[in-house]
């Protein structure tokens, strides 16, 4: 290796070092710590360094784990499909139906307005709306559509998914809109000239070309929902569990090794899900 290329390599490493340091310190180290603690032992009041697999054994042998994962997957799938449907439609409308760049940007910014307040506030404001004596129920009662308040509107899985969709749809809109804006309109015109119907243009041109955006949005939504504990708690009124909630309960009672083991399993699950998703689209190539 000559001196020139050596210098080049060194320079590359130097340029890379800030991100390596930051990720190493704030991402890799904490994960190593969590993995380590997940093998520690614990008593009722304390925990101590050890190398035991009891935490994992319990986790994999408990039916609670499986039912909670099932529930979490259900929340994830429902939220993902709804945010995708809504996000894709909104992005499509913005990208192809709205004329004029300024109108497009203006409407796009309008989508972000609700996000000027915090997640928690947007979520909690559903509670009085959906409640037994809330606006939704009283309006329906006055319209004569129902005889008595709908109990399942609030503190139910319905409420949880509703809040998730409300909170996370923007994470779908942004990347999908972004990829759609890059689609050359002449491609669609060419397809139309070649005799394709609107539906065929959608499935053969728009969707394939928006795939990277769809995938990025999906990764956002899936990871956010898989790790969430606060939305599930508030909107189900504490009646439903998700993996995140179990971890937060364990942390609450200072059961750090057990919580770490749950966290490691959750992390692995999410990583597997993302790697499967990435198999469908090569984001690097598409971008």
């Amino acid at each position, binding site marked *: 290796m000559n001196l020139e290329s050596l210098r080049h390599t060194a320079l590359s490493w130097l340029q890379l070092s800030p991100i390596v340091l930051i990720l190493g310190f704030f991402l890799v180290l904490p994960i190593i710590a969590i993995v380590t603690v997940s093998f520690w032992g*614990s*008593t*009722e*009041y*304390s925990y101590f360094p050890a190398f035991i697999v009891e935490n994992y054994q*319990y986790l994999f042998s*408990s039916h*609670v784990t499986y*039912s*909670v994962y099932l*529930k979490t997957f259900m929340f994830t799938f429902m939220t993902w499909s709804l945010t995708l449907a809504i996000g894709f439609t909104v992005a499509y409308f913005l990208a192809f139906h709205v004329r004029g760049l300024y109108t497009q940007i203006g409407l796009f910014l309008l989508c972000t307005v609700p996000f000027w307040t915090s997640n928690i506030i947007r979520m909690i404001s559903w*509670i*009085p709306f959906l*409640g*037994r*004596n*809330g606006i939704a129920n009283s309006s329906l009662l006055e319209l004569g559509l129902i005889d008595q308040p709908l*109990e399942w509107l*609030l*503190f139910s899985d319905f409420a949880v998914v509703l809040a998730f969709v409300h909170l996370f749809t923007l994470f779908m809109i942004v990347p999908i809109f972004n990829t759609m804006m890059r689609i050359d309109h002449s491609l669609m015109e060419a397809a139309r000239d070649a005799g394709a119907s609107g539906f065929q243009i959608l499935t053969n041109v728009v969707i394939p070309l928006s795939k990277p955006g769809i995938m990025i949005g999906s990764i956002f939504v899936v990871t956010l929902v898989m790790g969430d504990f606060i939305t599930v*708690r508030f909107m*189900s*009124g*504490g*009646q439903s*569990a998700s993996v995140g*909630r*179990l971890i937060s*309960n*364990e*942390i*609450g*009672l*200072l*059961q750090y090794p*057990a919580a770490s083991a749950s966290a490691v399993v959750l992390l692995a699950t999410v990583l597997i899900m993302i790697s499967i998703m990435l198999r469908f689209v090569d984001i690097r190539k598409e971008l």
Partner: protein
Amino acid sequence: MKGSFKADKQTNAGGLLSQGLSAHDRQRRRLLKGATGIVAASTVFGVPTIWAQNIKDVTLRQFGTGVSNLNDVGTKVKEDLGFSLEMTALDSDSVAQRAATQPKSFDIADIEYWICKKVWPAGNLQPMDTSKIDNYDKIAGIFKSGKLTEESVIAQGTAPHTVGFVDGPDGKDFVAEESGWMTLIPTIYNADTLGIRPDLIDEEVSSWAQLLDPKYKGKASILDIASIGIMDAAMVCEAMGEIAYGDKGNMTRDEIDKTLAIMTEAKNNGQFRAFWKSFDESVNLMASGEVVIQSMWSPAISAVRAKGIPCVYQPLKEGYRSWGGGIGLSKNLSGLELDAAYEYINWYLSGWVGGYLMRQGYYSAVPETSKEFMSADEWGYWFEGKPAEGEIVNPQGVVMEQAGALRDGGSFEQRMGSVACWNSVMDENQHMLRKWNEFIAA
């Protein structure tokens, strides 16, 4: 000297510009001379002034639950003692975590006795010398011997006196007798029971068992803090006659399983509307009418009433589930900070805070001193269970009750005398948590 020299220089500079002293400048000059005089005097008196100056720079950091970490207390400390007290209010779980894992982040831990059992072994707190506590003799008996009166029976669970003392200044183990070294200085306690909406319930509520009455299907709630929720669940199961516990505060695996099986069945039958974790959640559930019967905390009841919605802290025949809190000192405290902390503790027990807490519906650890900070009518209403003679106001001055009102559950002796169990940490804590998670996931 230095001051007047500076003043002359300033006048000279001024003189160059304006040719001569204005009346304003002359006045300022006199003031500056006066200031040098004060500085000289304080150095003559020496030490005490320096100490008083130093203690002003002391800032103690206290954290605890929102129940007693009140900014009003911080303000009053500054006023009465001169130093600063920073307050951080957290939820019960975070309090335990912080006390156990972040010893450097606080000077004073305002924690509950049952948490003390989890936190003390971590070694982040130092025992307190009771000989430095002025009002030690006046502290309520519950915290020293476990008995309110000579003949009272000690309730089940982690009774405060069982974790209140250690064997010495570096003590790690709890001792049952008054050893002179306290883990926490008791400050606040109360007897908890079910809260109900009397306007939405048309029968007499007199037993914990009624929480699971099918009549209230979809309108009941309990709290989702495992260690407290399990105690409420135990009160319910025992009242239903389903389980006879050896010690509700320290259940066997079998008892835990049975308790949560009953609760899970009720949950699956749709008995509960929601589970709450924070004070505000419980207030909103009750005020919005989502729930008509639930386990609740005393000030939450007041908060519902303050909205003009009727709410009763219903005394039940099986008795109360009680809790007590106190303040502990961080192991890192020493020297001047430690002195300030002891001064704070002595001040805490001297009555002002006690009166404040009593007006919120809690009890003070030293009732005698609080009495001096309350009117006779307030004392009669809150402590003696007598009908109010005039309006009863809360610490912020908002009218809570009209003349003639009676406190739910009666006098101090009636309420604290009917404690069935204390909040606790069980030996089977880990098993309980797993079962609780199953219950939530069911």
